[in-house]
């Protein structure tokens, strides 16, 4: 760049006035009274994902056809893209900003698409360093496996102990294969093992395995779930033909021969009740779901309720069982009473109140009870504190015994696969902090994504990752001028007559064309996607394009602070600061 040009006498000047210097000597940055800065922010979907998946990042890669990289972005936070892409209740979508524009992003379908493209991991998949410390994980559900996976990737020696003959927890023995095919689960568990996690099945803590055996480990993570079915506490519960939903599903999932009758009543309104009823339908029975509150209070996920209804399963609301009636030790009838909704109970839902004299009886030959599950905590030593039938833990997933941590369904009421994965990740980070003597609280604070307890493993592990401000981007903060309306691409489902005859997967996934079309709909809220608007519209050539983690820089020598870059960024990835005087 040419500096100042000074002519000392007239004879030095050109004969005709031809400019020979540029304007770089003129530091127009001094005109500025506001200062733009690049600052990625938190997308609402990411903050709402209990597993902490960096949604716009992976969707952006899908849009460019870079599926394996997208898969790796998800796997940075969760080892279960294929599982979650099928069974997650996708709170991310409920918080997607696109809702205010046309239709929410099909995040869940894209996650599944990415997982379905992914190759199996080679054993010995790269990890970050190697550490000699050993950690034991008890329970191989999503929570235990998530914790084990993240610790293994940090280099720890991890062994998972599982009571059942096969790993996976509820993913294996609860959710039927029409929602989660077993080969998908097998693949993702194999990928976890490829990262170095060792899984020992048929190893029950409190059975052959004792707490004493675990003392040789540096830390223990308990994630044994909630597998004890709640009783109805009405007469006749021990009659033949009466069983729990979870037992039925476990038997089906482990390939045992099961017999259900024709007239099957299922009591409950959660996922277990819905899955049990849909499984019964596929076994040739005729299920009827009885729920004591109304559809609104039903804890089962909406999608599962609507799929059950599509399949012709009848759900009767505001009905409670009062007595199971049998003949020769076998169930034959169920006596019920009609309910109405009263005041709110401790869960904030309206309490069902029986309507006097409204009793009636139903003919049934099988009764399935699915009225909720509780953890079995009988194997715990006394010094591990239990509260409200759950293991109590601090923010760092630590129990009252120093080296023992716990998470998932056994310690929380947020009982979903994504939450379980998130709790497992939290415990892994906490265990790493304790072993490496880092302050857990401040670490957890620094890697938050939004305010719902979501954590970012990418942030935890990488110093160079572009920092994101915790500010969650609202719809009003986007510049919509650069987006076009486009229909949401949803997965197809098998036609009902085909799907109810066996346990084949109901949902068929997105085609590549659909996935690509869907991916480009994402606003990438708060996360720079390199659209270049800031560079294109800066009238002062003060946006410098860099390669690497930080794509753009502002040249404060010349930036006049017009604010156009901030205004024309479609996704609020720049912020404004007052210029220091």
């Amino acid at each position, binding site marked *: 760049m*040419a500096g100042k*040009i000074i002519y000392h006498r007239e004879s030095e000047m050109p004969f005709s006035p031809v400019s020979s210097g540029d*304007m770089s000597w003129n530091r127009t940055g001094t005109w500025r009274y506001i200062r733009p800065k690049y600052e990625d922010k938190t997308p609402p979907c990411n903050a709402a994902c209990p597993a902490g998946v960096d949604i716009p990042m992976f969707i952006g890669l899908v849009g460019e056809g870079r599926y394996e990289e997208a898969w790796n972005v998800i796997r940075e936070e969760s080892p279960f893209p294929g599982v979650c892409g099928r069974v997650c209740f996708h709170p991310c979508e409920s918080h997607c900003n696109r809702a205010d524009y046309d239709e929410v992003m099909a995040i869940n379908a894209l996650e599944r698409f990415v997982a379905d493209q992914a190759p199996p991991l080679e054993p010995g998949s790269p990890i970050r360093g190697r550490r000699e410390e050993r950690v034991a994980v008890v329970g191989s559900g999503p929570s235990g496996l998530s914790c084990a996976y993240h610790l293994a990737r940090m280099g720890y020696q991890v062994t998972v102990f599982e009571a059942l003959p096969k790993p996976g927890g509820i993913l294996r023995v609860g959710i039927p294969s029409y929602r989660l095919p077993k080969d998908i689960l097998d693949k993702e568990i194999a990928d976890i093992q490829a990262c170095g996690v060792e899984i020992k099945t048929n190893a029950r803590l409190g059975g052959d395995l004792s707490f004493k055996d675990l003392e040789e480990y540096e830390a223990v993570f308990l994630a044994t779930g909630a597998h004890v079915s709640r009783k109805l506490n009405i007469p006749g519960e021990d009659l033949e033909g009466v069983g729990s939903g979870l037992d039925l599903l476990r038997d089906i999932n482990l390939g045992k021969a099961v017999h259900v009758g024709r007239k099957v009543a299922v009591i409950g309104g959660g996922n277990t009740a819905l899955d049990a009823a849909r499984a019964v339908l596929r076994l040739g029975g005729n299920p009827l779901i009885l729920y004591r509150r109304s559809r609104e209070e039903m804890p089962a996920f909406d999608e599962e309720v609507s799929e059950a209804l599509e399949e012709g399963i009848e759900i009767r609301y505001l009905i409670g069982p009062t007595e199971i009636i049998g003949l020769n030790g076998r169930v034959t009838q169920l006596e019920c009473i009609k309910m109405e909704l009263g005041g709110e109970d401790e869960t904030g839902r309206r309490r069902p109140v029986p309507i006097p004299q409204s009793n009636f009886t139903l003919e049934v030959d099988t009764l399935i009870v699915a009225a909720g599950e509780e953890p079995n905590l009988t194997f715990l030593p006394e010094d591990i504190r239990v509260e409200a039938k759950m293991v109590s833990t601090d923010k760092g997933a630590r129990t009252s015994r120093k080296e023992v941590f716990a998470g998932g369904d056994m310690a929380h009421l947020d009982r979903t696969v994504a939450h379980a994965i998130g709790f497992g990740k939290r415990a892994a980070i906490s265990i790493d902090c304790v072993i490496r003597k880092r302050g857990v609280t401040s670490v957890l604070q620094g890697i938050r994504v939004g305010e719902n307890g979501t954590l970012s493993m990418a942030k935890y592990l990488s110093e160079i990752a572009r920092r994101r401000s915790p500010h969650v981007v609202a719809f009003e903060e986007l510049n919509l001028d650069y987006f076009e309306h486009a229909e949401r691409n949803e997965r197809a489902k098998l036609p009902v007559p085909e799907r109810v005859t066996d346990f084949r997967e109901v949902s068929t996934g997105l085609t590549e064309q659909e996935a690509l079309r869907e991916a480009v709909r994402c606003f990438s809220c708060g996360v720079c996607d390199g659209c*270049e608007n800031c560079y294109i519209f800066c009238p002062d050539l003060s946006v410098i394009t860099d390669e690497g983690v930080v794509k753009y820089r502002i040249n404060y020598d010349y930036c006049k602070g017009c604010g156009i870059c901030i205004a024309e960024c479609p996704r609020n990835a720049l912020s404004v600061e007052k210029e220091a005087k």
Partner: protein
Amino acid sequence: MKIHIPKEEHMGPGHLACAGCGSPLGLRLALKALGEETVIVIPASCMSIIVGPFPYSAIGVPIVHVAFETAACSASGIRASLDMQGDRKTTVVAWAGDGGTFDIGIQALSGAAERNDDFIYICSDNEAYMNTGIQRSSATPYLAWTTTTPVGNPKERPKKDMMAIMADHGIPYAAAACVAYPEDFIGKLKKAKGIKGTRFIHLLTPCPAGWRIASNESIKVARLAVETKVFPLYEIEGGEVHTITYQPKGTPVEAYLSQQGRFRHLTKEEVATIQENVDRRWDRLVKRCEGRAN
């Protein structure tokens, strides 16, 4: 949608435009489209100042500074001189304001266009004489405030239809563009570069000071001018064939007017009249595009 523009840069920072000005952005984009082998003729206007004082220049191609009314005839002369030297590669561009084009420069421009002299004329229209302090020109919109059309003494005449006037000279190419649509603008310039004869580009360039908007609003407002159909993006080939190059959303003009201090005094009725005018002229443009004269 993602905007794609060429990476090459023939302009540098340190220029003298106000923060948020659309003109330097327009010139920067134009140079990206036209490349290094270009000569720019600049008559008196904000741009004379923006590019910098002798012996400095913010752009990497030759500039010839000329008198206010002489953009077109200077361009004609430079073209003739290059031709005599056998240089057919260099593109000659006149870059003038609306005052320098619609008013004082129209004589020279009309003469050159009638002769079909071979240069690209870009009118950077900020809808008033901005460099001397926001006086009205014949490009100032109906009822807009300027220092010479203060509130209470409105401009009661519509904006002159310069595109029609130029097209009716029978020139090969005329196009309306806007800095908020860089790809459209660059595309038109590339097309113009491939044509011989007088090519006219009517470029809308927002002026934060004169339009009474914040510096960060200039692209937003320029975009609204297009989306409301106040400033349609189109081209006229051979003086006849009309084509709309961008289909606007048809946002009500109120959204455009209410963003700007220069229209803040308008009554509801006046806004409604402006809407009618815009709709009528849009219909006329559509008919012309369909080849139906009107």
